């Protein structure tokens, strides 16, 4: 199967860099899979799980939003934070949910409130999917 170059970077470091077959990305408008020769695309991410299908089986990484740039040769994800799923602590996510909730309660105009409500939903969905994943693993 054709491979392409994939970089996953967060502000503090380069999390993943290498050739992969497929990457599933949690876009803000919905999940999408990227294969080699994908059309050029710049997308926003929501908090979610990036699944990397490389040589060593699927790897899952939790990202908390950011951007993805796709072109036929490569995919770059600029994540706000990226932590491999097996190292991810749910407490971090719980803290983020609390924070989003507090921000939502403090929001004054409708636009911010909409945005924060979206974010809160996304965080909760992520929390649920991680909880489901760990439960299934046990």
């Amino acid at each position, binding site marked *: 199967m054709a491979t392409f170059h994939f970089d996953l970077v*967060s502000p503090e*470091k*380069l999390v993943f860099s290498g050739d992969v077959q497929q990457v599933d990305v949690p876009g803000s408008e919905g999940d999408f899979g990227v294969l080699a020769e994908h059309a*050029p*695309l*710049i997308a926003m991410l929501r908090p979610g799980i990036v699944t990397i299908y490389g040589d060593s089986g699927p790897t899952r990484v939790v990202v908390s939003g950011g951007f993805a*740039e796709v072109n036929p040769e490569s995919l770059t994800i600029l994540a706000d934070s990226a932590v491999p799923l097996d190292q991810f602590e749910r407490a971090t996510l719980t803290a983020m949910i609390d924070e989003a909730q507090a921000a939502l309660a403090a929001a004054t105009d409708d636009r911010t409130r909409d945005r924060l409500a979206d974010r809160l939903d996304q965080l909760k969905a992520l929390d649920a999917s991680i909880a489901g994943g760990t439960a299934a693993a046990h």
Partner: protein
Amino acid sequence: MASLKDMRNRIASTKATQKITKAMQMVAASKLRRAQAAAEIARPYAERMDRVFANIAAGMAGSDSAPKLLGGTGRNQVHLLIVATGERGLAGAFNSSIVRLARDHANRLIAEGKEVKILTVGRKGYEQLRRNYEKNIVDRVELRSVRVLGFVNAQEIGEKVTAMFERGEFDVATLFYSRFKSVISQIPTAQQLIPAAPAADSAAPQVYYEFEPDEEDILAEFLPRYIATQIFRALLENNASFYGSQMSAMDNATRNAGEMIRKQTLTYNRTRQAMITKELIEIISGAEAL
């Protein structure tokens, strides 16, 4: 003339100073390594951010709906100078050279009749600029309590700056920091932050991107982050520069102290010998008189 005891004390105190500067040099050397490593691992993000930004900016080129952070306010009247310095001194000319660059810039702008606002990051810059520009300083950020510089620190500053921009408090923002070239060479640099301009060398390829959601929404999210990344990069460079500068300053100080100890010991020995000689002469002439 100083007594022998005084001279011994002075030599001891110079030695103590030399020990301190030597220790500071070694601490700075190890911190420099860490600061350099931190700057190293943050580089991929900034580089790729530049590339993505160049692509988006190319996609937006010529559009009237470009956000102000990108296109500017169309005016050039109020300038915000973000001056990033260290929290501590004893680092040679590190802080002063950044401040000098910022001061020259500010004076030029004032001479042109523009309004200047200053945001200082780091205690030293604030202290030095306060003397002449007290009324121009609109805000200051101290990173003294920050042990490891994280992206969040840069994000906070970025949010502050973006919020000020959105309230229309300035038109152009310039960031002052020291670029780390090598241990012996740090270059004070001024970088325009707002309106954001893609780096000249990352010329966008002629590819037409799809945007999801549309360009404007992406840009609205992307630009604050881009600015925070620029600040983060500057802070990391600054950190490395600071320790580099401190290391060479302390190396100099240690060498100077060594030189001073050598001179003081020489004078001490000469004086001691002169006194012995004098005493001997006194004894001999006393014996002869008998």
